């Protein structure tokens, strides 16, 4: 049997159980959201004992070296004894600066951190409420801007989104942990065509990446495809059209499955992309949003000739509400 020490108590792990599941099962409150090793909300630190390699996949070297690991991906072998602490030391206090609706289903949250957060536009952070509730959201802002910007999709019954939409007020305090993720623009090859595509609040990281690339002086074409089921699911359309007028190399293409119009194409996202970008050989691409759609688009673009090293994806995973395993679809 493996066991884990948290604060002053030892907790036994069932065979094959993750540290996160074992602690939650035994009544210890640990921030968590996706429970699939992606969002990094359940980051913890091993102060004694060794964690399996799989528990540190995707973490920065500096975090690994300090013993940080993901509790949801940590399934220690029989006989392991681990002593763990939370990742409080990595969290930065922040306050809500502004809350405003971008559409009927997307809330813009602006946050100001007490100390600067170093990040790349398009990475994501975990938002941790005072009671430990955590959800991860992509950053739509640029690092030099005075606030962090998140686009929060309002989920029916969503714990964090419901609180932000109905109860939270400007001035309320939260904590921010991160950033994480490798879905961002790296300066270089300014003439290379760029393809950005996403659905729903997958626009958040893409909105950051587009503006980051433009600010870095990217001169090649920058295509942005934003898909939604209906026109109501699109947002920031006037801002993006204005941006396209200012920068002729930026091409904004909103698309919907139903209810298209003169300005909004109708059809599946991959079909719209193929129609306008039939040969993306040698391009760089970023795909964000709904998990299955992102994975299917990545495969199609790879088959169309994009190299894997030029394909950056951020597939949003549903958060798993505590105590149940039903899907609460799309934390970010």
């Amino acid at each position: 049997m493996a066991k884990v020490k948290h604060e002053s108590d030892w907790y036994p792990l069932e065979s094959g159980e993750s540290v996160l599941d074992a602690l939650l099962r035994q009544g210890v409150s640990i921030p968590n959201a996706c429970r699939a090793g992606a969002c990094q909300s359940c980051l913890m630190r091993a102060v004694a004992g060794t964690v399996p390699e799989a528990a540190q996949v995707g973490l920065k070297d500096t975090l690994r070296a300090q013993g940080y690991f993901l509790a949801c991906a940590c399934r220690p072998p029989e006989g392991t004894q681990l002593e763990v602490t939370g990742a409080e030391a990595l969290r930065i206090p922040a306050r809500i600066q502004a809350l405003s609706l971008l559409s009927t289903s997307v809330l813009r949250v602006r946050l100001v951190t007490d100390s600067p957060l170093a990040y790349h536009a398009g990475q994501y952070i975990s938002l941790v409420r005072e009671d430990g509730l955590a959800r991860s959201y992509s950053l739509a802002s640029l690092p030099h801007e005075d606030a962090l910007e998140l686009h929060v999709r309002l989920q029916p019954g969503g714990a964090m989104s419901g609180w932000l939409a109905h109860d939270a007020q400007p001035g309320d305090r939260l904590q921010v942990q991160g950033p994480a993720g490798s879905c961002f623009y790296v300066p270089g090859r300014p003439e290379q065509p760029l393809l950005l595509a996403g659905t729903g609040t997958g626009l958040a990281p893409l909105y950051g990446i587009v503006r980051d690339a433009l600010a870095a002086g990217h001169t090649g074409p920058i295509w942005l495809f934003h898909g939604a089921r209906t026109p109501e699911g699109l947002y920031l359309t006037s801002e993006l059209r204005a941006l396209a007028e200012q920068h002729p190399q930026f091409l904004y293409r909103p698309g919907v499955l139903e209810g298209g119009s003169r300005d909004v194409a109708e059809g599946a996202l991959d079909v719209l992309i193929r129609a306008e970008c039939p040969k993306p050989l040698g391009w760089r691409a970023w795909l964000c949003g709904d998990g299955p759609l992102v994975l299917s688009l990545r495969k199609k673009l790879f088959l169309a000739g994009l190299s894997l090293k030029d394909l950056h994806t951020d597939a949003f995973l549903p958060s798993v509400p505590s105590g149940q395993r039903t899907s609460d679809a799309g934390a970010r």
Partner: protein
Amino acid sequence: MSVTAEKSVYEQLGGEPAMAAAVEVFYRKVLADDHISHFFEDVDMERQAAKQKAFLTMVTGGPVHYSGKDMRAGHAPLVKRGLNDSHFDAVAGHLKATLEELGVAAPLVAKVMTIAESARADVLGR
């Protein structure tokens, strides 16, 4: 006969950079082939590409060595899912086409295909 050891196909092709270029060509072919693509579907495409690069390195005589036991264990779950000679032949065909597309000389292609063929029994768990 030369005293120095004969260079492997892997070295003659240009080593690791050549494998990195070949793997994307090869991976596209297997993913686009409906007869075998389901054996290669993976949420983590980088991991899948890394496996295929190791495979290409092995069959070109590069610094990757799988024992027959490794090959059996690694493919056992696929055999359970119905992996058979027709799938092996299809993969071998894509391997050959990849090498030819990259301009590898016919005698070297033949050498690689011989190494690949030698793994058939282990891959299919016979």
